[in-house]
């Protein structure tokens, strides 16, 4: 009975050969939204016969993946992204304008407006996202229409003593603050389209939020996770959030969705930013018509209904609201009402420059480090520092000349050293030798030399919106002369360098002393359950460090963290860990110490166990006290084992990005950032200043290189 199988295989292969080339679709969705897009893609295949290859990329990585893959023809035909990056995509020429398939009148007006650029439309709008007010029904509150009404309700609903609040939202994020700023009449951009921060509305909006927090009407340092917990546990009556929040509410909780209230003082509504998600067609697609068809298919008709029902998206297509199932969905219609008041987030480059300064100012004000009055100026200063003027383009010729001369000098010097002998004479077996080292050399070249050379060259360029210009050593001079900010400001290289050195020193000292102390305890043969302790103490090391970092970050939370809870038991006021430099730095150091001591403990334990006990007995008889034994026997004998560990530990700590990024995140105001995390921010959070970031990395390299020379000397002494 073989023939049916053979027939099946043949059939399958002919089918796959017959199939038309498929389309690639990239998106950043998860959960219901992902399911919905998969359903819609299937429907597309059913309708047209064209296969769709779907790739879900984590949202954070999607943008950089798109911008790097599409120019190399390795990207998708269609991708889904929020409209804010449209201008950037356009400048990088990775997105194609929409064809005649796009009928603007069929979509919500702000949604299509958001996709317009210089008179042309790009992509097909799929859904909109914006903020609205979520209220628990069981609190019996009516939706406030003004801030006065809101405040009255919040006062009634809050109970500071029990950590219960009227309102919770991610107040440290400018996306959430923007509607409030607009409600107070604020304008983000001046007449020339430049960002402006030092406005009366900015001060008023900051002051209003701060006063809510000061009156305990809303929690401090609220993260998304905290907001969710508070709402589900009925510890807050209202939440400001977006459509995604509906997926986070426990099934049993009854709630309703309302527009944000109007600011009583100005009479203006709090208008949220409107994010429009659209299906864009790649400029490099090989099947423009099919891709266009897919993008359109996803944006209208059945696909929209699928996205609404399964993905809980707020559709951009007007027809969808006529659909029976959609019309009955109160959440969808509520958001539509909100969306009609909203303004699309500007898709300008200038908008992208606003986020970090505003985040800085918001957090500084909310943590109490800066008054609402000074918040705007703080953001303005940061804005000016981050958006440094592009250094003047220079000619690369002198650099190339110096490089060539250097190479020539090196070669002549080397051949002078060879004293006239030819290469063959000096290395008679070079061929075979090269064959032996080739695999390792190739590995080194790919993993070390090439990235290093690229990084080095990159540091001589300035990058802006996909274009590189040669600027010579300007990045270095800017960094080293601390151009645009004072040396004592966190943005300055020197400030960060000092912080990095302090950070490294504090950590290494703590790691070694705690590790050594515990190793000595664990070595004590009288200690019961020694094996158990040993394993327990190594656990912090076995847990991936970013998980540990997140746990500690949670434990350091001002209101809900375990550490303040413990301090509270001793009657100590809760500490706002990330509000001052000292405590934020301490929090980082504590976390990293937790991670770092096991390594030193294991190294010390091994080294301790290799010290013969009779040395201690001899010392004991010689008249040495325990302390003297430690100082004169243990320490010197540990040195050979500990020194390399300390050198290694110091380099690790110097570049310990995860802890800084995840625990303090550089707060307050970037003050606890170290060199690597600062380099990261320049590259990925501050207008993609890759060249500047590369220059930072080169400087880091030089610092570590100098340190390695010092340690070489140190361990050299050891050998002698």
């Amino acid at each position, binding site marked *: 009975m073989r023939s049916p199988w053979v027939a099946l295989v043949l059939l399958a292969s002919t089918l796959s050969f017959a199939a038309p080339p498929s389309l690639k679709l990239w998106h950043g969705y998860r959960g219901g939204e992902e399911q919905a897009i998969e359903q819609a893609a299937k429907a597309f295949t059913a309708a047209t016969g064209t296969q769709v290859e779907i790739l879900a990329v984590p949202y954070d990585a999607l943008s950089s993946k798109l911008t790097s893959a599409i120019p190399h023809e390795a990207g998708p035909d269609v991708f889904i992204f929020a409209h804010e990056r449209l201008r950037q995509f356009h400048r990088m020429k990775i997105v194609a304008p929409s064809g005649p398939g796009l009928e603007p009148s069929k979509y919500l007006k702000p949604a299509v407006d958001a996709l317009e650029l210089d008179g042309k439309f790009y992509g097909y709008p799929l859904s909109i996202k914006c903020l609205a007010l979520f209220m628990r029904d069981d609190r019996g509150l009516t939706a406030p229409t003004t801030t006065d009404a809101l405040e009255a309700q919040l006062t009634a609903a809050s109970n500071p003593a029990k950590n219960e609040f009227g309102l919770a939202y991610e107040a440290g994020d400018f996306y959430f603050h923007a509607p409030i700023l607009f409600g107070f009449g604020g304008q983000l951009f001046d007449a020339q389209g430049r960002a402006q921060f030092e406005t009366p509305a900015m001060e008023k909006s900051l002051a209003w939020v701060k006063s809510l927090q000061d009156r305990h009407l809303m929690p401090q340092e609220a993260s998304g996770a905290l907001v969710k917990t508070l709402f589900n546990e009925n510890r807050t009556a209202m939440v400001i959030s977006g459509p995604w929040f509906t997926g986070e509410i426990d099934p049993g909780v009854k709630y309703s969705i309302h527009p944000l209230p109007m600011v009583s003082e100005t009479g203006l509504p709090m208008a949220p930013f409107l994010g429009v998600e659209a299906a864009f067609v790649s400029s490099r697609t090989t099947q423009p018509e099919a891709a266009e068809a897919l993008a359109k298919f996803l944006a209208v008709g059945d696909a929209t209904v699928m996205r609404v029902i399964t993905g809980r998206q707020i559709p951009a297509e007007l027809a969808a609201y006529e659909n029976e199932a959609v019309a009955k969905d109160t959440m969808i219609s509520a958001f539509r009402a909100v969306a009609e008041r909203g303004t699309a987030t500007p898709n300008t480059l200038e908008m992208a420059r606003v986020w970090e300064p505003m985040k800085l100012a918001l957090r500084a004000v909310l943590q109490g480090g800066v008054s609402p009055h000074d918040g705007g100026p703080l953001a303005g200063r940061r804005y000016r520092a981050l958006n440094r003027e592009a250094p003047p383009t220079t000619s690369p010729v002198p650099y190339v000349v110096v490089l060539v001369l250097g190479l020539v000098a090196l070669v002549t010097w080397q051949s002078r050293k060879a004293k006239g002998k030819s290469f063959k004479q000096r290395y008679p077996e070079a061929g075979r030798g090269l064959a032996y080292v080739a695999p390792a050399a190739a590995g080194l070249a790919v993993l070390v030399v090439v990235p290093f050379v690229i990084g080095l060259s990159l540091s001589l360029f300035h990058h802006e919106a996909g274009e590189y210009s040669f600027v010579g050593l300007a990045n270095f001079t800017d960094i080293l002369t601390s151009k645009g900010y004072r040396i004592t400001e966190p943005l300055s290289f020197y400030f960060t360098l000092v912080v990095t050195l302090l950070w490294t020193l504090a950590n290494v000292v703590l790691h070694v002393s705690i590790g050594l102390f515990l190793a000595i305890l664990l070595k004590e043969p009288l200690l019961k359950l020694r094996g158990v302790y040993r394993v327990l103490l190594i656990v912090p090391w076995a847990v991936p460090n970013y998980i540990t970092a997140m746990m500690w970050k949670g434990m350091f939370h001002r209101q809900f963290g375990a550490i303040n809870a413990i301090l509270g038991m001793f009657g100590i006021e809760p500490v706002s860990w990330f509000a001052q430099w000292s405590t934020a730095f301490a929090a980082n150091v504590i976390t990293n110490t937790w991670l770092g001591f096991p390594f030193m403990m294991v190294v010390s334990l091994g080294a301790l166990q290799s010290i*013969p006990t*009779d*040395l201690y*007995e*001899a*010392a*004991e*008889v*010689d*008249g*040495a*006290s325990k302390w*003297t034994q430690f100082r*004169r*026997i243990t320490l*010197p*004998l540990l040195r050979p084992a500990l020194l390399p560990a300390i050198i290694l530990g110091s380099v690790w700590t110097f570049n310990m990005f995860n802890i800084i990024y995840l625990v303090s995140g550089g707060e307050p105001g970037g003050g606890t950032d170290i060199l690597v995390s600062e380099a990261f921010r320049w590259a990925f959070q501050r207008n993609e200043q890759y060249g500047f970031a590369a220059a930072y990395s080169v400087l880091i390299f030089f610092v570590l290189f100098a340190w390695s020379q010092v340690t070489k000397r140190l361990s050299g002494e050891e050998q002698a």
Partner: protein
Amino acid sequence: MQIPLVVPCVLSTLRPLVSDVRLVGIKKSFGENAIVKGVDLDVIDGEFLVMVGPSGCGKTTLLRIISGLEQMDEGELFIGGKKMNDVPPRERDVGMVFQSYALYPHMTVRENMAFGLELRKLPRAEIDARVAEAARMLELGPLLERKPKALSGGQRQRVAMGRVIVRRPQLFLFDEPLSNLDTALRVAMRGELARLHRQLGVTMIYVTHDQVEAMTLATRVAVFNQGILQQLGAPLELYHRPCNAFVAQFLGSPSMNLITAKREGDRFVGAGFTLPAVGDASGEVKLGMRPQDLRVGSEGPIRGEIEAVERLGFDGYAFLKTPAGPIAARFEGADVQVGQTVAVMPTGDVLHVFSSDGARALRHPEARRA
């Protein structure tokens, strides 16, 4: 001929306080295992006491109890008349040379020796003088700046000794210091140790399981077995008048022959032999004869087949298989070969008589009773 008196005046300054060591009913167990089972011992001031016994009999443990590195379970310890039970090692003023030397690997020879003195906060000049003196005595002068890694076994041994000497403790403890050395070096070091003891005149307790060391070095020897002191006395006294079969067999090489016999009137009768009876023992006994006191020949009360020969030159020892058990006996010159059947003959009054379980000596040969 005048025998030079060997305690030079210079060295007499090294003499510490008059001291003696006294152990009273000392017991020590590790978990279930009783290791030291009640030891009473008086060490006379200035003597060289050697503790011997088979491996695992508790010698090291006892030494460590004296030094304070180990706590005793029961009993009392006095050093220099002072009760030491609860005094930590560093206050006991004892010097200990470890079996492994335990030199501090990160210190030079000089630093190793000076360490104990520095801890006592002696003035620098004094420390240097003492180190120099000890180095001269032990011929360590050229090695002072080396680290232990760069020393030979014998040199390390001397450094270990020097480290103790410079401190001038009132009591020296040695735990098999020579066991790691080769034979030639061991013989040489033995001589140095004896000289050192004569020079310093200080009490030394020395642990070994090498009976030659015990016989050559000791003022008195203490023989241990299974955590019990078997006998204490001058080396020759122990050799000639062992108080039980264990001591008799432990000292002397080859070890004493022991055969079972029964007293029948004026004869000892055993398997395949009869010997004229001596002493007043009756019934079942154990007879001991040192191989040195037996001659191989054609005539004799005990006959057997030669199983092995240990020729030292003109003479040597033959090991026989006899009905009474294995017997070792001396031979001279004679043409002795494995496989021969020969007789052995006592060279006079040589018979030690022990109770049948070997626990008590009943009689020793007359001539050696003095």
